[in-house]
């Protein structure tokens, strides 16, 4: 049997939930698929207070946000959230297949599809990078913050961007030692608030360093790190051994954009966004009519922008289905303005440059 909701949303992170809040609020029959055990995407493991604008819950701890996003619509009969359900295919007749709890294949033929699948962590090359004990930093966050299990007793963090810094701090909160934070750049990529917390804990941040190899037989028992030169090549003689029983990689994220490719949406490789992303218009619609993009899958950014993009995709979808949305044009413009202001200033520069590479000018553009 093929289910025919008006809107199918793949991914129940901040982008997907914000989209659902809008489509359900406008009266669309909406199904949300998420492959995790609970909704919320990356947010469920984020115990720190959020940066970002107030409209998008800055100052609130990340783990509380899914609950707040769903509050207005959680009782609506129009909303169905299927967890542990992985969207696995898209066919030329517009059918999306999904594996439900590893047991059953479900089929959907929605009128509109919003893809908000987020991103996955990247890895880097070094001997033994596949050894148990080499973990994504986000994965370690899930293990310790959601399930209360320690990944090990002493970790080495690779990457001093926000994720590397935040997870290092959270490891210490959980009583787990951090040997050092290693960063290839000559500066710290993350925000100073996070970096200074690490400095206060006396965890060394080693810029212009990289990991040479992970040590161990069956699992990590240490690591070799070294200084690098201007060409990012290890400087002989600077190698040293670090004692640790796990290594966290916080070396960036890459969009999980396969479904767009299956749906033959036009894609473009955008280095600023971590990989291949679909072209989109200002309403978040891709080159394939009726398929929308929102959040990290369209370009690695942050939860605040994922929420606004989700809301924008949600109201645009509902509007295109002919739902009555009071003040549609004003709300649409407000959301777009909010994105512009989030992406303003020097911090937003690489995002602006990324957006410029994947814009299609919309015929349906409002205002």
């Amino acid at each position, binding site marked *: 049997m093929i289910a025919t909701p008006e809107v199918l949303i793949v991914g129940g992170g901040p982008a997907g939930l914000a989209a659902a809040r809008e489509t359900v609020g406008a009266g669309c029959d909406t199904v949300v698929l998420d492959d995790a055990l609970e909704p919320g995407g990356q947010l469920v493991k984020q115990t720190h207070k959020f940066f970002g604008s107030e409209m998008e819950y800055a100052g609130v701890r990340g783990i509380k946000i899914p609950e707040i996003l769903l509050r207005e619509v959680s009782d609506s009969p129009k909303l169905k959230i299927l967890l542990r359900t992985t969207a696995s295919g898209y066919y030329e007749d517009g059918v999306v297949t999904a594996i439900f709890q*590893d047991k059953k294949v479900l089929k959907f033929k929605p009128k509109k599809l919003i893809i908000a699948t987020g991103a996955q962590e990247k890895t880097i090359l070094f001997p033994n990078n596949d050894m148990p004990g080499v973990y994504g930093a986000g*994965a370690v966050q899930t293990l310790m913050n959601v399930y209360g299990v320690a990944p090990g007793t002493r970790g080495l963090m690779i990457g001093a961007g926000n994720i590397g810094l935040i997870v290092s701090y959270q490891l210490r909160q959980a009583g787990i030692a951090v040997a050092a934070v290693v960063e290839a750049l000559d500066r710290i990529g993350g925000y100073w608030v996070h970096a200074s917390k690490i400095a206060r804990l006396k965890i060394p941040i080693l810029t212009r360093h990289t990991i040479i190899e992970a040590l161990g037989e069956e*699992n990590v028992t240490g690591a070799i790190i070294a200084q690098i030169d201007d060409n990012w090549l290890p400087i002989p003689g600077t190698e040293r051994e670090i004692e640790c029983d796990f290594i966290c990689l916080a070396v960036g994220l890459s969009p999980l954009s396969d479904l767009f490719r299956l749906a033959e949406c036009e894609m473009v490789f955008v280095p600023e966004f971590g990989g291949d992303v679909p072209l989109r218009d200002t309403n978040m619609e891709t080159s394939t009519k009726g398929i929308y993009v929102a959040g990290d899958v369209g370009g690695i950014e942050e939860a605040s922008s994922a929420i606004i993009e989700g809301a924008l995709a949600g109201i645009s979808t509902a509007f295109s289905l002919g739902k009555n949305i009071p003040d549609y044009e004003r709300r649409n413009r407000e959301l777009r303005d909010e994105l512009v202001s989030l992406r303003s200033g020097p911090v937003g520069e690489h995002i602006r440059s990324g957006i410029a590479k994947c814009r299609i000018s919309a015929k349906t553009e409002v205002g």
Partner: protein
Amino acid sequence: MRIENHPILEFKHGKKVGFTFEGEELSGYEGEPIAAALHDHGVQVLRYSIRHNRPRGFFCAIGHCSSCLMEVDGIPNVRVCTEPLAAGMVVRRQRGKGELR
């Protein structure tokens, strides 16, 4: 190892249940990912890779990277980072592609 006394988090655990790993009786909390329960007992090696027989463990925690495939109740290729633990599960390290019975 479980994290006790966290300064800002309180962990809501399901009820304690027993399962077996490679024939050994272990316990964990119902509903948590199998990988979390195994980590609590210090089990990091979850399978051996197909071509070079190298040990593999937990990596992405979102069911995408295929590093953590194990045999659960006789079924191979189960992603234990997202598969909830249930009482009486029989969990084994997977070697290679696993076998369908």
